[in-house]
């Protein structure tokens, strides 16, 4: 009989304090514990001996836990590197300071408690580090990140460093308000149930006047989309002042709503140079009756939390474009994994977040995308190394975030999108709507028909993964715009290897 066993050990054992104490009380433990006089003699001692490496530490339910992928410099012991990361992301400086002794310093020190080799990569290690709850200000992503990714990523003793995942105690999550609207209330407000929402980003993203821009919005919404979206770099340039854009877009939204009898929306991007300008733009969007506003990730964590508060006060859905994230999320050796950004954003409080498409033009391994979508949408996410989730996480009733799939997707992939991403997502077909040979409304109609036909078929119990193309062809027989869309884009795929993939090994073992 063949069994499949995960050999990446993961943190579960450690989190429950099991299996590390036996047989290890000797060397490591003794080397770690200097007597107080030796420990505080001025000079430089290894981080391990300063109290940042505690392999027998019993992780508390109230600890924040982080797992880093560490690539130590040549000759640096992985445990020392882990201790250094723990030290530099909590209380340490490079040398001994006597003022530690004025504090309850053991409490404030982060503790690296486990180091595992990364399967298939002898240079890298996963280091698990626990931080006491006391270290963090309630309800502040800025404070959290200033610790966890503040100084440590430039630290010389590690060649590269990546924050892979975090676990947050429920008590800490309860200090955050989370998404102002959430998936459930968003759907109730929009009166849209039982299918993914459909969107598109206005193209070209730069250069259209307000009047021309609103035309794209109107055609797409009238044709069948639920939302149209400003792109991340549409703010207030010379070709289109923000007030002009807001006015024309809301004319388009209301006209389309009357033409279809549906609630429609346009994500008005309120990103600006200062908070005062962002509030001014958001207030104007509210006055005009918009159901949703949008910000870019580059506005910063504090601005995002402020906008979340504003949205909560004003019954507004908050869309987040993850502009800039690829600079630090994509490469596996260094940066912050996007699943961590998604966790922070669920805490900071956004209602929508771009989270990958699997099949489109942007980075996205199917397993990793599932881990990110689960992080956005589930009430509890169990540890699952295959999807990149290192920890059990209870989301403490924070609202769910609607993941947005955007970038190089089209109607011909509908069965794949529905299978991979499920119902609670916004599928955004920008080029796949506006690039339709018969116009924007026809493109929108093609997407909506493809979507509804696929949901109908799935609910009827059909195997859409295999029958998907046939289901689309059948709908295309009575829906000319869908037929045209399938003809134009039928062979378009973006089949490149992903860079951000899970690192665990499925090992075949034979048992009796």
């Amino acid at each position, binding site marked *: 009989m063949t069994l499949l066993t995960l050999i990446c050990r993961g943190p579960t054992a450690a989190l429950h304090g099991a299996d590390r104490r036996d047989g290890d009380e000797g060397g490591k433990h003794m080397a770690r514990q200097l007597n107080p006089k030796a420990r505080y003699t001025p000079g430089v001692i290894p981080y391990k001996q300063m109290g940042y490496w505690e392999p027998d530490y019993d992780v508390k339910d109230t600890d924040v836990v982080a797992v880093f992928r560490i690539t130590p410099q040549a000759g640096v012991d992985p445990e020392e590197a882990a201790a250094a990361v723990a030290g530099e992301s909590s209380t340490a400086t490079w040398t001994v300071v006597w003022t530690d002794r004025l504090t309850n310093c053991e409490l404030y020190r982060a503790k690296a408690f486990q180091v595992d080799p990364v399967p298939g990569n002898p240079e890298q290690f996963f280091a698990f580090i626990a931080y006491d709850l006391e270290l963090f200000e309630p309800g502040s992503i800025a404070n959290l990140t200033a610790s966890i990714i503040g100084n440590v990523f430039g630290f010389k003793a590690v060649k590269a460093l990546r924050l892979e995942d975090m676990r947050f105690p429920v008590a800490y999550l309860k200090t955050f308000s989370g998404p102002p609207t959430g998936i459930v209330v968003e759907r109730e407000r929009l009166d849209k149930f039982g299918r993914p929402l459909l969107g598109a980003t206005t193209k070209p993203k730069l250069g259209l006047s307000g009047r021309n821009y609103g035309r794209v919005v109107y055609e797409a919404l009238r044709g069948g989309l639920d939302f149209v979206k400003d792109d991340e770099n549409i703010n207030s340039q010379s070709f289109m002042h923000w007030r002009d854009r807001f006015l024309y877009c809301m004319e388009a939204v*209301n006209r389309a*709503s009357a*033409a279809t009898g*549906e609630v429609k929306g346009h994500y008005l991007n309120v990103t600006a140079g200062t908070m005062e300008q962002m509030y001014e733009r958001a207030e104007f969007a509210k006055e005009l009756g918009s159901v949703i506003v949008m910000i870019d990730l580059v506005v910063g964590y504090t601005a995002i939390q402020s906008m979340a508060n504003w949205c909560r006060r004003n019954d507004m859905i908050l869309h987040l474009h993850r502009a800039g994230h690829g600079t630090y999320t994509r490469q596996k050796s260094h940066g912050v994994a996007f699943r961590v950004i998604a966790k922070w954003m669920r805490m900071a409080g956004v209602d929508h977040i771009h989270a990958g498409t699997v099949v489109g033009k942007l980075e996205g391994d199917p397993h990793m995308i599932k881990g990110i979508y689960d992080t956005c949408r589930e009430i509890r996410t169990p540890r699952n190394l295959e999807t990149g989730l290192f920890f059990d996480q209870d989301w403490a009733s924070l609202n769910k975030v609607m993941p947005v799939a955007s970038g190089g997707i089209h109607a011909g992939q509908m069965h794949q999108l529905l299978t991979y991403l499920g119902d609670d997502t916004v599928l955004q077909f920008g080029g796949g709507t506006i690039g339709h040979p018969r116009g924007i409304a026809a493109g929108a109609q093609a997407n909506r028909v493809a979507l509804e036909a696929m949901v109908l078929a799935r609910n009827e119990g059909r195997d859409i993964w295999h029958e998907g193309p046939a289901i689309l062809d059948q709908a295309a027989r009575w829906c000319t715009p869908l037929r045209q869309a399938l003809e134009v884009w039928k062979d378009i795929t973006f089949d490149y290897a992903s860079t951000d993939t899970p690192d665990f090994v499925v090992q075949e073992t034979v048992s009796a």
Partner: protein
Amino acid sequence: MHITQGQFSFLPALTDEQIKRQVKWALDHEWAVSVEYTDDPHPRNTYWEMHGHPMFDLRDPAGVMEEITACRLAFPSHYIRVMAFDSSEGWETPRMSFIVNRPDHEPGFRVERQEGPGRSLRYTVRSYAVERPEGQRY
């Protein structure tokens, strides 16, 4: 015009057999199905009239089909929708909503604009049909 509320309004009107399969999907998920009707299909009219309570204890799609048929007989020219309510943790909200009956003629809506300072506009979407009293609209 053709009101496109609900999850299947872009498809040809569903046959009873198709409706039954969707009801089965809902019941298989242990969602409670309900039938609602209105002659005021404004996009923000949340509360359509309930044709009885959600059928919490009914597990047979045929029973739901009987309710739909009864509602159609009573209100042949109204909008009728089927909804499925999920009472599970983290949801507690409708999970499905689709139209199963609509009037032959749908006059639709107009946009009214109230001009304000700074070129700003206040919009109202108004239904043509609702100008007549309830029950006489379609």
